[in-house]
């Protein structure tokens, strides 16, 4: 409790000092040495075990972990030039734009150069966790129906059972959520079925959310039957366990036609006060111990090329990501989306 209050106070302090909006801030370690500043979109609790293990290896260091939304992370780096040693975000497109526009410093080590080509952009931007973007379905709500295994199945299912799904389908609002926009655009890029699905969802008065957590809550309390395009890791961690001997109510479905996979990425910004420490933390995250912690404790799927399932389509780190950030492209896409959602 005290920690929470402290974190809140620190957050307020940070707000006063910095223009971008800080959600949480915590200083790890009591070492008398240097302090590493990390700006991240990942919640503190998820990252804490990893940070503690890193500090156990480097007891002289301290680590200031600042959490902000992906838009704020982008703003902090792009507009304010905030001094951090490592910037971690799940918004691949914004990270890519920051790197492309020259905000990422070069960093080379065996660990980062060992990453597969699609998980690394030059010596600037590096993926460290790969998260499938999945569908969540409630067993209760779908009782008697077959679980959809692909987008086509889902479209058929929704069309066949409008009464059951009306107002009970959820997805991100791409206007509000950067992640939602990225997933929608990647879907649209991969398949024409996406627009059909959008139309079907629009006809069924789909509900649009800002965040995964709200969608999961809706599924738990029975408001929702199905959520489309949810980050898998959030689903895994937040899902309540089923009662003894019973399957959990909420099912995670990775669409078999293809499952977009999101990379959580990190880079050392050009304005870093201690770029070598930011790099050291990145190396640790990509190392054996770091991977194990990301997988086991943080419950983020680590990046492991060999285990890549055939239906997984990682979003490549390349300048293609810049396309949907284009203001005209975005306007057009959202216009299309709105047209699909809002039907007479």
């Amino acid at each position, binding site marked *: 409790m005290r920690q929470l209050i402290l974190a809140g106070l620190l957050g307020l302090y940070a707000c006063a000092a910095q223009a971008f909006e800080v959600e949480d801030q915590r200083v790890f370690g009591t070492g008398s040495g240097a302090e590493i500043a990390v700006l991240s979109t990942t919640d503190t609790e998820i990252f804490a075990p990893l940070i503690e293990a890193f500090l156990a290896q480097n007891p002289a260091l301290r680590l200031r972990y600042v959490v902000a939304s992906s838009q704020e992370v982008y703003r902090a780096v792009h507009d304010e030039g905030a001094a951090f040693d490592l910037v971690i975000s799940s918004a691949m497109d914004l990270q890519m734009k920051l*790197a492309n526009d*020259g905000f990422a410093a070069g960093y080379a080590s065996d660990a980062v150069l060992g990453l597969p080509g699609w998980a690394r*952009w*030059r010596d600037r931007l590096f993926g460290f966790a790969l998260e499938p973007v999945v569908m969540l379905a409630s067993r209760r709500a779908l009782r008697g129906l077959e679980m959809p295994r692909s987008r086509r199945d889902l479209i058929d299912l929704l069309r066949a059972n409008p009464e059951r799904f009306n107002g009970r389908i959820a997805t991100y609002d791409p206007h509000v959520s950067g992640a939602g926009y990225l997933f929608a655009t990647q879907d649209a890029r991969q398949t024409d079925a996406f627009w059909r699905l959008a139309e079907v969802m629009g006809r069924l008065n789909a509900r649009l959310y800002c965040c995964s957590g709200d969608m999961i809550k809706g599924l738990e309390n029975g408001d929702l039957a199905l959520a489309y395009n949810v980050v898998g890791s959030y689903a895994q961690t937040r899902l309540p366990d089923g009662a003894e001997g019973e399957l959990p109510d909420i099912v995670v479905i990775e669409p078999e036609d293809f499952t977009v996979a999101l990379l959580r990425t990190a880079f050392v910004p050009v304005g870093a006060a201690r770029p070598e420490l930011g790099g050291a933390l990145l190396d640790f995250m990509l190392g054996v111990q770091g991977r194990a912690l990301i997988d086991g404790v943080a419950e983020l799927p680590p990046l492991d090329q060999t285990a890549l399932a055939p239906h997984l389509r990682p979003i490549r780190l*390349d*300048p293609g990501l810049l396309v949907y950030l284009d203001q005209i492209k975005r306007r057009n896409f959202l216009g299309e989306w709105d047209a699909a959602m809002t039907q007479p």
Partner: protein
Amino acid sequence: MRAFLPNGSLRAKLVVQLLVVAAALAVLLYFTVRTTADRAAEATQDAILGAATTSIAEQLRATEDGIEVDLAYATFSMLGAIGQDRLFYRIDIGGKTVTGYDDLPLPEVQPASLAAAFYTAPYLDTELRIAVVARSMIVGKGPVPVLVMVGQTRLGQAAIADSLANRAALVGLGFFLLAVPLSLLSAGSVFNPINRLAEAVGRRGPRDLRPVRHPAPRELAPLIGALNGFVARLRGALSQTETFIAEAAHHIRTPLSTVRTEAEIALRQSNDEGTRVRLRSMIRGVETSARSASQLLDHAMVLYRSDQLESVEVDLATVAQNVARAFEPTAELKELDLVVEGEAPLLTTGDPLLVESALRNLVDNAIKYSEAETEVRIVLSRAVGMAVVQVLDQGRGLQGVPVARLTGRFTRGQNVGDVVGSGLGLTIVTEVAAALGGRFELTQRETGGTCASLFLPAC
């Protein structure tokens, strides 16, 4: 070798020059490949960038509310594929930036055609290669100019050029490393003929003054020519000396015999004891001079013939008998027995005149130093691969004088003051033995007297 090169080593000079050339070629190779690779990579990347820019420009569509821009994901994705280069774009419609990076540098010259134009400009913290496509579109009332620019860093190009150039550098380095042993080898092969020539000249005997006929490359011809000229001059000078000595000896001998004859006549006619003593001493002097002159002639002949050695089969027994017959009158004067015995025939190879000259000198010595009424024996025998001629006398012997001294030119023993001699006899014998590949030994006989042994190769 060194004798040819007073100023350091030609070989080292040649190797260094070859290596410098190899290094220069390697460096040239590196820069050529680098430049070519850079240009090729730039041309390739320009083509891709131009195609991408044109494709974006072609996807512009006029609609009721202006112009619609549709950037293709794949286009952007592809542009970044080569070298993961950074990408910037800007679309201006009617002079106003509608999307992209509005501070992306504009081209200095407005491109005229629909084809993409390229320019390089600094942007942010880097330098960009920018493709620009201009077109005009009908929007509303009239045509509006549209400018599409796509800029790209050229790290990929640099990386390609670097990797190719590095490979070229490796090839160049390998080339150079290969050039090291090759140039050493080639320098060696260039200088081999010189070494062989030097060796051939060095192997020659001390008196071998034939012109050098060693096969040698054309470039060595002047050297050989000069060498042969020098040898010819040397030979000329030597033979002049020998001829001079021979001539001189000859010119001295003839008047000497006249003097001697006259002196003997005078001796016979004179009754005055004092005059007779003087005349005898004069005759002795003349005799010594005549003998010296004759031996000088012999010696000159030996030197001359051993330079141009004739090699025929010679029977030593025959030669010995001939010599003995020639000395018969002289021996009789002292009432000496001159005996030839031993193996006959005894064959050797060599110049018969030289062999005869040697034997003559030996027998002459033996007769000179023998007491009256003793015996001089010429013994022919065969030792291991050698034909041996021994001349044995019962004279005064060597009396402890080293043999080496006796065989030197114009040296004589200490106990010979009363005997006429020039000191050239044993020199001639030694030189003949050496010229024919044999040897000469002089030993004291246990029974008194001297044993002179001439060893010549048997055949």
